[in-house]
């Protein structure tokens, strides 16, 4: 497993856990059960741990650490990230109308959050694309 795969794994695991905790927190909040705040905290911790793990992955050793295939995979990952951001923008553009109706309104203070959401969406899509292209695990030793 190379450095990019390890970084992608760290982000995918961290972000997936964070997403799971956010969904649970949202459901608890909607059902008015309480206990949603600890899940939001857990989501933040999972996301932070994923990002820290991603940043702490050591560089690959060896004479050649990147070649034409790595560059090709990187390009595909960027393309997937761009597509994910585009999809995210489409969804958040229409979701308020679909949920609140044509006369609904949302506070503008939520707008900067869209930037964060788009960034997370891009990182997630890039990590998934990287893992799909490289394969999930290591490789055979001969």
């Amino acid at each position: 497993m190379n450095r990019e795969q390890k970084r992608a794994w760290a982000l995918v695991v961290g972000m997936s856990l964070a997403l799971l905790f956010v969904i649970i927190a949202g459901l608890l909040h909607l059902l008015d059960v309480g206990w949603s705040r600890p899940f939001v905290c857990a989501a933040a911790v999972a996301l932070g741990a994923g990002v820290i793990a991603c940043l702490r992955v050591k560089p690959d050793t060896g004479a050649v650490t990147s070649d034409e295939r790595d560059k090709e995979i990187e390009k595909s990952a960027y393309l997937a990230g761009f597509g994910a951001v585009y999809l995210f923008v489409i969804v958040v553009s229409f979701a308020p109308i679909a949920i609140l109706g044509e006369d609904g309104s949302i506070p503008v203070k939520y707008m900067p959050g869209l930037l964060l959401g788009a960034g997370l969406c891009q990182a997630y899509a890039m990590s998934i694309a990287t893992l799909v292209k490289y394969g999930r695990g290591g490789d055979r030793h001969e």
Partner: protein
Amino acid sequence: MAKSEIQNRIRRLRFDHGEMTQQQLADKARVTRQTIIAIEAGKYAPSLPLAFRIAAAFGLPLEEVFQYTANGDAPPDD
């Protein structure tokens, strides 16, 4: 998954050349071992310069290492 149209004899050639390891071939071709594994498995079609470098690592012409098959059938291995 559809078979690649570019078939190769890298695995056989490695063993014919003193059981060359994937890492040794990767170093000679200036790529990572993962790329050699992917090419050997037919999961990645190398660029023309890389294909030439791999062939040069074995001291053979390109067509003795890589074969093009229109329908993805494996070429006869000797």
